[in-house]
């Protein structure tokens, strides 16, 4: 019963965070749009009567409409886009024994978690990795790389699939998939706006910048530029923080589904040992994966910042916790079984 309560609390928290995320995203785009309008309005307010005055806030209207469209799209098609971006293909008719085993294992975990069977996808990449995506349990997909199928034993594969099923069951997939769409959109917006501003500033400079702009307008413009520069970083850090917290829980729930924490521990060992990056999975979807697709890059370059930015808790820490669960389990069994 307490497990049910835990699960319900986790699902509620993910629903709430998904809503908050959408609201925050809309507010951010509103600020980018209307803030830009305000800055332009203030700056052009003192201009000679015959020159351009920015009165209609069309940037704001356009950017809020765009944000709405992006939210809707991430909600409806986020999972498809993530799968498309990794080049995954759907496994419908298993051809090799490995593929058959994958389908079997996914079916087993669907039964264990009491959920409908998610769609199964394979990514043509030699590095072992896996992720789950979707809006809810009914529309969920689980994707694994070919490297994962080749390197893991049956029990280990089952453990990894159980970890992904745990993400599906906790509704982590909803939050993570929305995040993937929005992080991507913000990166794109920041890039695009940077280009527009670059051109715009050259134009004003040519017009013989008198330097007599409205001071408030300048302040807002600076603030506005600052958000545009900082937003991609902030959104990525947010995605990573949200993901890290959920990895431990998915490890634990997954181990509960298979009743075999040691298998996940040894699977993580193998995933950690494969230090090559998962090339098919780009930064935008990194937070969805069971292990960071680009291991070492952040930690090597940014030192202590890695702790803050890394999408996943240190894999050593996860293995230690799973082993702890395994030992506890063995101890209890030893006590329960009369000698």
């Amino acid at each position, binding site marked *: 019963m307490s497990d049910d309560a835990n699960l319900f609390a986790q699902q509620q928290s993910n629903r709430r965070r998904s809503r908050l995320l959408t609201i925050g995203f809309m507010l951010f785009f509103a600020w980018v749009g209307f803030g830009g309008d305000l800055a332009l309005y203030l700056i052009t307010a003192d201009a000679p009567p015959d020159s351009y005055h920015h009165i209609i806030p069309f940037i704001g209207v356009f950017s809020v409409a765009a944000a709405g469209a992006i939210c809707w799209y991430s909600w409806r098609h986020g999972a498809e886009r993530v799968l498309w971006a990794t080049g995954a293909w759907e496994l419908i008719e298993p051809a090799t024994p490995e593929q058959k085993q994958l389908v*079997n294992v996914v079916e087993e975990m669907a*039964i264990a978690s009491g959920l409908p069977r998610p769609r199964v996808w394979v990514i043509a990449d030699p590095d072992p990795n896996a992720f789950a995506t979707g809006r809810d349990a009914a529309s969920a997909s689980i994707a694994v790389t070919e490297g994962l199928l080749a390197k893991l034993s049956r029990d280990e594969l089952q453990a990894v699939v159980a970890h992904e099923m745990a993400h599906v069951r906790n509704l982590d997939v909803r939050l993570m998939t929305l995040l993937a769409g929005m992080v991507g959109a913000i990166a794109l917006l920041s890039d695009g706006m940077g280009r527009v501003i670059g051109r715009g500033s050259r134009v004003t400079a040519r017009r013989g910048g008198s330097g007599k702009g409205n001071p408030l307008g300048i302040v807002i413009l600076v603030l506005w530029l600052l958000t545009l520069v900082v937003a991609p970083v902030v959104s990525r850090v947010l995605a990573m923080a949200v993901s890290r917290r959920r990895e*431990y829980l998915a490890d634990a729930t997954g181990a509960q589904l298979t009743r075999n924490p040691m298998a996940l521990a040894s699977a993580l060992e193998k995933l950690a040992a494969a230090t090559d990056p998962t090339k098919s999975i780009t930064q935008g979807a990194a937070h969805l994966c069971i292990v960071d697709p680009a291991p070492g890059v952040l930690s090597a370059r940014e030192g202590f910042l890695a702790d803050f930015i890394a999408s996943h*808790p240190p894999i050593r820490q996860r293995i230690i916790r799973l082993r702890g*669960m395994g030992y506890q389990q063995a101890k209890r069994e030893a006590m329960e079984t009369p000698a």
Partner: protein
Amino acid sequence: MATIVLLVVIGVIVLWVIGAYNGLISLKNQVVNGWKQIDVQLKRRHDLIPNLVNTVKGAMDFERSTLDAVISARNRAVGASGVQQTARAEGELTQALGRLFALTEAYPDLKATGNVAQLQEELTSTENKIGFARQLYNDVATQYNTRQMQFPTNLVAGLAKASPAELWEIEDAAERSVPIVDLSANKRGA
């Protein structure tokens, strides 16, 4: 005034009876459904075994007794009815199959011929599915049994024709227990 109070009280009671009744019926259906899930997997297992026996028969002719044990265990399992009888028969079948697979290890050629490996994978998966479906069934059945015995739901149990569902007990000591999730550790690390 008094009649209104009386009507409200009766209304509340009727609503509660409806709610409790529907709750029991829904649990009962979940139990039936849980058992169906097990049944599907058991059928699949029974269908796979003749294939396996036929494939290995030629190569393992002198292991006749093991093969016969598997076949007779399978036939008993097919004929079993009721939760307890099925549980016992399926347990015996699992053991007989275990011995057969242990023997096939001694025939590398046999394992190399894809077919056996494939059948073994199918049987392993089916066995896992039975195991997980059994967990789910036992969970729902326990919930159903508790609910129909608890006061005040037990007053409606007769109306809903609820009777305790049998659990699928296993004596297998090697069966793994559920690991405990320590959530305090999860929070500290986040």
